[in-house]
Every structure is written in structure tokens, then in C-alpha cells.
């Protein structure tokens, strides 16, 4: 550290260590540091709590990891309990992927419409409307699913109506605003020069969108899709209402299945804390948490690519 040059101002500052604004400076610094430390402590304790509870199934109750991750039989309350979480894990991934498949093209098209085709109308009316969608509570989505989507599927497609298909449809509507907002923001922040250069070369609007705009914002679009998938993966209430929650790996999209979140929400209140049934649910929560970390990691990697 070099301290060879001391300006007059610096010298004065050193002479009056408790000057008013210096004190305020310190108070502000301490206040924000305390808040940050508290926030970090909260995060660390949540992670610690879920992990310690989730690991107890294997460490204390002696359920084997293979049984948990690859067992297809979930019967925690049976006379001979078994804790195969594979049906729930499969269910979670299945609805998440299906929802992303349904929602992504719709969202990206909506974002393109809002930014490239009719920017004024899009910015003024469509964007607030889509953002409004994300504010609707998930129980409302679940109820809409149960009253509209389930009977529609039952009458026009077949099966019980309740099942993976209904779950994926409800989820896809729920994640539409997430993907659309991220995609629209990315498209709007694209420098104008890029499009103008393309037009100057004689490209049409569709050629510009397809060859220039979309490839440039691809990482941001993927970020939006992963964010949407993270939301779909963790969504509990709406899915639980329409998916059926049977502890089996479904053989068709119209068959009842369960997800990690639906098993947890249905079972958590009915089981006593510390029992093996309860611990198994915490293990599922741990799987969910780890998956969320994976999603965040993917988003970080995409963002890094985006910057270059």
C-alpha cells in the first residue's frame, strides 16, 4: 500500500475522524452489511435445514440411495414401506419439459410480435397484459385447470381428463409470462444498427428476424426458457390440483401421475415431524432444491455466453 501523497483534503479528513458525514457513512455501511449478513444467514440456514432433514432419510432411517432414486414404488405408509421417488422425479421432469415445449414457441412468437412487428401496441398493451398473467396466484390457475382444461380433455381427448397433459397445459400457461418478458427485454435491447445493416443488405423483415435477430438473442431466449422451466419445476399447487397424484410412472399423457412438489404438499401436513415418512418428503425437497441450483447454474452459464 502506498501512502506517499497526502492531499490537503485527506489530511483534514484524518484530523476529524468523527465528522458528521463520515459517521453517516459508517452507519450506512454497517446497516447494509448487517442486512447482507442476515440475508446470507437466512439462505445458509435454509440450505442447511433442508439438507440435514433430507439426508436423515438415508443417514438415520437407512433408506438406500438406489431405492430412493431408482425405486418405482412409493408407499411410505404401507405395512412394509418403500420409498421409490422415481415416479415423482419422472413426473416433475415430464411436465416441466412438456410445459417448456408448449410455452417456448408461443412466448418467443409473442415477444417477436411485441418488439419487431408492432412495437408501439406491444409495449403499451401486450407487455403489461402478459406481466399481469404472472401476478395471478397459482391456485387460480389450478382451479381454471380443474374447471376448464380437465373437462375439455375428458370430453374431447379421452381418459379421465386429469393427468400429465392437463398439468403440462396449466404449467405452460403459467410460465408464458416469464419466457415472454425475458425474450421481449432481450429483443428490445438489441442495437438498432444490427437490424438496419441487415435491411441495408436487402434482407426482408422475416429474413432479418430469422437470420440476424434470433441467433443474436438466442442465449437470452434460452435463459428465459430455463427460468420458465425452473418455475414449472417448483410449482406445486396448480399442478397438484390437475395432475392426479397417483404414485406411478405414467404410460400416457392422459394418465394420472405425481410430481415431487405434489407428493410433498399432499404429505407434509399429514406426517409427524421426524418420522421416516416425513424425512422422505424432505429428501424430495432436497432433490427439488438441488434441481433449482442446477437451473440457476445453467442460467449463469448462458448469461456468460450472452456477454461475449
Amino acid at each position, binding site marked *: 500500500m502506498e501512502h506517499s501523497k497526502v492531499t490537503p483534503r485527506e489530511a483534514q479528513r484524518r484530523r476529524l475522524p468523527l465528522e458528521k458525514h463520515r459517521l453517516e457513512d459508517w452507519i450506512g455501511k454497517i446497516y447494509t452489511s448487517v442486512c*447482507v449478513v442476515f440475508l446470507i444467514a437466512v439462505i445458509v440456514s435454509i440450505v442447511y435445514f433442508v439438507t440435514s432433514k433430507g439426508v436423515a432419510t438415508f443417514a438415520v432411517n437407512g433408506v438406500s440411495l438406489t431405492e430412493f432414486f431408482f425405486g418405482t414404488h412409493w408407499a411410505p405408509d404401507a405395512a412394509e414401506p418403500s420409498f421409490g421417488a422415481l415416479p415423482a422425479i419422472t413426473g416433475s421432469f415430464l411436465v416441466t419439459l412438456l410445459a417448456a415445449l408448449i410455452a417456448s414457441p408461443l412466448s418467443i412468437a409473442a415477444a417477436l410480435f411485441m418488439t419487431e412487428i408492432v412495437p408501439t401496441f406491444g409495449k403499451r398493451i401486450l407487455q403489461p397484459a402478459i406481466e399481469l398473467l404472472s401476478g395471478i396466484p397459482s391456485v387460480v390457475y389450478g382451479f381454471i385447470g380443474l374447471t376448464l382444461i380437465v373437462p375439455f380433455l375428458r370430453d374431447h381427448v379421452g381418459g379421465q381428463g386429469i393427468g400429465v397433459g392437463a398439468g403440462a397445459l396449466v404449467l405452460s400457461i403459467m410460465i408464458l409470462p416469464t419466457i415472454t418478458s425475458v425474450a421481449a427485454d432481450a429483443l428490445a435491447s438489441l442495437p438498432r444498427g444490427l437490424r438496419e445493416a441487415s435491411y441495408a443488405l436487402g434482407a426482408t423483415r422475416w429474413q432479418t428476424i430469422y437470420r440476424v435477430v434470433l441467433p443474436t438473442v438466442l442465449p437470452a431466449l434460452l435463459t428465459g426458457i430455463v427460468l420458465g422451466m425452473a418455475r414449472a419445476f417448483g410449482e406445486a399447487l396448480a399442478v397438484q390440483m390437475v395432475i392426479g397424484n397417483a404414485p406411478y410412472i405414467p404410460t400416457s399423457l392422459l394418465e394420472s401421475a405425481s410430481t415431487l412438489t405434489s407428493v410433498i404438499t399432499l404429505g407434509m401436513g399429514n406426517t409427524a415431524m421426524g418420522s421416516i415418512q416425513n424425512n422422505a418428503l424432505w429428501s424430495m425437497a432436497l432433490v427439488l432444491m438441488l434441481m433449482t441450483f442446477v437451473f440457476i447454474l445453467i442460467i449463469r452459464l448462458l448469461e456468460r455466453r450472452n456477454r461475449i
Partner: protein
Amino acid sequence: MFKKLPIMLLTLTMVLVLAACGSNGGTTTGSGAGTDTGSTGGENSSELSGSILAVGSTALQPLVDQVAQKFMADSKYANVSVQVQGGGSGTGLTQVSEGQANIGNSDVFAEEKLDADKAAELVDHQVAVVAMAAVANKGANVKDLKKQQLVDIFTGKVTNWKEVGGADQKIVVINRPSSSGTRATFEKYALGQKTEDPAGSIQQDSSGTVKKLIAETPGAIGYLALSYLDDSVTALSYDGVEPKVENVEAGKYPIWAYEHMYTKGEPDASTKAFLDYMLSEDVQQSDVTELGYIPMSGMQVQRDAEGKVSQK
């Protein structure tokens, strides 16, 4: 030196917080017991004060909620406040056993959820009876099922209504989650055995949703508390006995369970006052029947945790 300060602070706080987490279980039990003894006032009920926390069963919650409002409105108990929370029977039993709640509401005997030594510490106050019926979609065209027929349906052995004398229609089983108190009651007293969900069956926890699904899904069967029954679904007789309050009280219809309000040890004065109020003839004849539960006083039979039925 200054750059490292935040990190040091952070580590210190984390250690403190984690330490606090570790001792959490112990301290709450202590403080819970403390408030209990604090409210043990004199014998005179007008001097009762304190707060009561009742947590647990969502099936019992509406009754406790309503009675709590009435209780607090009574000038005799003006200084007592009662808080009612849902969360499920397991949560209720856990919290009362750990001393976090004064009352744990449960649909099942504590022995069925907790370890024997923990269950032994709890005192059972049975405040009402809930009866259930197997309920089918109207299109199934069935009015009565024998025990064995129900077992076959809920284990997936029988998959078409015509096999039990109904319409030619696929059976859709609508179950409760495997840990639910309602399901435990139905399995214990209607089926006499635990069942596993047949593939393709549906699980829902809320009675409202179950009723909606049974009413709308062709071929659906499930079970509901009597208070939920109406014309949109068919309530099935069990071995020829209709699901009716009189039949439950007379001990002819077996699918029923007590609603329990557990306390850890004997309740303190204000909690006892609330539980007595709950069992008072006034509440039992109005609120309990109004909300579709069966009053304790009407029951001519009683049942213990093992399911043994005896005349009162």
C-alpha cells in the same frame, strides 16, 4: 485488514445462527411450557387469561374456528385468545407433542402417527365424531356395496362397475394421499386393510375437490365426510346400511372416527375451559351438528385406539 472484516463478521453471524438453529427444539419446548403455567390462574373462570394455540387437522379446523370465535365473544373468557391453524393432523400432533401448540387437532389417534412414548404424554379430548361414506358418480348406477366389493375396487381388482352390479363403465378411484387421516379412517373401518393406489387412480386432499371430481368424472368413486354429501353424487350404503347419523350413533354404520384435540399432559386452566366449552351441550347441539359433525353425546357406542367398539 478492513477488506477481511465483512467476511469475518459474516462467518461469526453464521456460526451464531447455526448454533441457534441447533438449540431451537429445546428452547421452544421450554418457553411453551412457560406460557402454559403462566395462564394457570385462580379457580375463578372470570380471571382466566392467556392465549391458546390450536393447530392441526383441516377436517376439524372449521369447527374449532367457529367455536373459538364464540368462546372469545363470551364475556366470561374475554381475556383468553384462541388461535386456530390448519396444517394437517401430523403437524398438529407434532406441534403439541413438542410444546409449540397448546392443542393438537387430529383425525386419528396419536398412537397411529407418533412414537408410543410420545403419544403416551398426550391427553386425548374427543370433541366430535365424523362419519364418512363411499361416494360414487351418479352414472355408475350403484346404491350399495359390500365390504369385499369395496376392497376389490380400492385395490384395483375390480375395474368395471358392471362387476359389482352397475353400469358398464370403467371405475376411476379417487383416493386421499396415503398419509391422510380421512384415508386412514376409511381404510381401517370400511376396508379393514391398508391399500395401495391402483395405477391411474387420482389422489386429492381437499374434500371440495374430491366431490367436484366424483360428480364430474364418469365412473368415479371416492369417499367423503357426511357433511359434504349432496344430490350431485351418490352416497353408497355399506353392507346394506345407509350412511346416516342415526345409524352411526346406534353403532350400525362403522365408517366413522373421532375428532381429537390433544393436549400435552393435563391442560392448563384456560385450555381446559376452552375444551369444556367445546363439549358443552350448547356447542355440541348447535355448532357441531350445524357443521356436519356428530355430537359426542349422541353416540351410543365408543371405540378405542385399537378400533374395539363397545356400548357406552
